[in-house]
């Protein structure tokens, strides 16, 4: 297998395979993950290799199978639950938010649970197959949230999520499953933390993560031709947040744009904007700006969806505006 031909989806599959092979406590559960290979074929072949005991198809009962996974995690297993779409996390929300997340705080009992959920739009999935749910969960103490944007991070953050003793929401970007290619990495000792500077630059910092990282990088290349040198920071893990990397970058560039596919309002961009304004006010040469999906449900029709989600063009326009401030 040539390393450079690995897709994001294959990287997650290889990561799950590593996890199953290395640790017999790992079990996969979810709708169609076994015989069917999952709605996005991420778990294809894993049933044949590891058997029904460890790769289990479930009824359409998110609350029940998430609850079972919490129980398994409490008793020392390493369950990995797949939600077919991140939109369906609402069906298991009580288990995630009120059972798993506060368990360690309440009872000092770790819940090493990984919840995988494909998030984001871009392919006419409509209001119930396109959402970016991270902001719903980031306000929940006790829950970690990872959002890989590259094949390398798909493997590394999956390994880190499985090694973490806390419940982790692993938000796969369905728009990247086949569109992003790269190498595979898997290291259980890698931390579930830390942002990465994906493109160094002097004039302006763009903070992003997940699928939106790619239009941010494209926008940075576009404005580079106009003489604007943009630094792009990939958060990689949304909780815990690597504030130091963001702060160091913004302190260098003195301008900050936060761009993600989730709605700009009330989410990661709002949190970062508040922290940049609150802690780096003296460093700033321009106001903090946010780019995200328009604040309405993600529509089905292609031109309506395109008008809703952030694009490289829209991000470039925001960069130009900030650079000229």
């Amino acid at each position, binding site marked *: 297998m040539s390393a450079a031909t690995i897709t994001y989806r294959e990287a997650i599959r290889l990561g799950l395979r590593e996890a199953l092979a290395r640790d017999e406590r790992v079990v996969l559960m979810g709708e169609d993950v076994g015989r069917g290979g999952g709605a996005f074929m991420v778990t294809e072949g894993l049933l044949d290799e590891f058997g029904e*005991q460890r790769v289990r198809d*479930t*009824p359409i*009962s998110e*609350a*029940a*199978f*998430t*609850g*079972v*996974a*919490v*129980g*398994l*995690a*409490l*008793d*020392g*297993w390493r*369950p990995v639950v797949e939600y077919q779409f991140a939109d369906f996390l609402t069906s298991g929300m*009580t*288990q995630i938010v*009120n*059972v798993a997340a506060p*368990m*360690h*705080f*309440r*009872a*000092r*009992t*770790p*819940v*090493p649970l990984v919840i995988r959920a494909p998030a984001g739009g871009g392919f006419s999935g409509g209001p119930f197959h396109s959402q970016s749910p991270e902001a719903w969960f980031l306000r929940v*103490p*006790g829950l*970690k949230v990872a959002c890989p944007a590259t094949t390398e991070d798909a493997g590394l953050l999956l390994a880190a999520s499985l090694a973490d*003793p*806390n419940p982790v929401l692993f938000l796969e970007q369905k728009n990247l499953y086949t569109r992003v290619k790269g190498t595979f990495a898997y290291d259980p000792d890698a931390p579930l933390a830390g942002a990465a500077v994906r493109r160094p630059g002097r004039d302006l910092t763009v903070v992003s993560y997940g699928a939106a990282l790619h239009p941010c990088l494209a926008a940075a290349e576009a404005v580079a031709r106009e003489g604007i040198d943009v630094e792009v920071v990939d958060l990689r893990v949304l909780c815990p947040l690597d504030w130091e990397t963001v702060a160091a970058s913004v302190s260098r560039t003195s301008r900050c744009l936060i761009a993600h596919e989730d709605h700009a309002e009330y989410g990661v961009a709002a949190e970062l904007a508040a922290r940049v304004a609150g802690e780096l006010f003296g460093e700033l040469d321009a106001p903090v700006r946010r780019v995200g999906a328009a604040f309405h449900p993600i529509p089905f029709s292609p031109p309506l969806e395109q008008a809703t989600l952030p694009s490289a063009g829209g991000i470039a326009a925001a960069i130009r505006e900030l650079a000229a401030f």
Partner: protein
Amino acid sequence: MSTVDRVGRDEDATVDERAELLRRAGYWLHLMRAIEEAGRRLYLQGRLAGSFYDGRGQEATAVGAGLALRSRDVACPLIRDLAVHLIRGITPEQAFRHYLGRAGGPMEGRDGNVHLGSLALGTIPMVSHLPEMIPVGMGVALGRAWRGERVAALAFCGDGAANGGVWHEALNLAGAWRAPLVVLVERNGWQYMTRSDACLAVERVVDRAPGYGAAGFSVDGNDVLAVHEVVAAALEHARSGRGPAIVEAHTYRMHGHGSHDDQRYVPQAELAAWAERDPLVLWERRARAEAGWTDEEQRQLVEAVEREVGEALERALAAPYPSPDDLAASVFA
């Protein structure tokens, strides 16, 4: 699988075993009652933060079921089931420290009421979202069954919680996977202020059992030996790999939902009628008839429990509050 009605006759037990079980049950019944009476007094005196939740009238269900558990079984007790925690190792002093939000309680003041539990003791810390603990307990038992252990999960819920979505999801999943799960429905008549009858589409919750491939059992929830026998049978059914079981224990919630609830919506005659069937009264009658229980033994039991509970409460009241210093540090493992 058909619904089975059982009444309280430990047919397999010898007379001596039943007498011994009755004597043990008597201690736990009186201990739960005494702790909860003391807790309720603290609340009414304004000495207990939050509200207080007790299981008066339902002690036989908690005790009978708690004594039917084996050490590696896992239980998900709710707010009427203090005795399950006591039987599994929570001391009266720990219970009071917990109620009072003091250091040294099982949740170190992070949670209160009857929200406690520890997998080390075979219980899952309950959440208020009912009946969300059912699949969690099932997960623990299922994982142990995968490792070859012969265990079951015993998840408690009220007749109100039996109408929550996850109740149905969990039982269906247990039926589909033949998971070792027993759901014990305490048919106590009320979902907070509303009669549970008005909220059920079936006359008896256990009538739903065939829909989940579950065995169904009904029992007099105020008769501790009957509960013990039926729950033991249901747990054995689940442990044997034949799938889940539902036990419907007919009982009555003698107090309000919590001590803040004055039960103004409950007819006095109904309370009076159920008071005649108080689980401690029924127990004493059976203990005298079947275990040779004497007046002197009864006096000694009540005295011993009162002393134990009084001393535990005194120590708990003297205990310090937990420090807030490590609150943020305990969010993540």
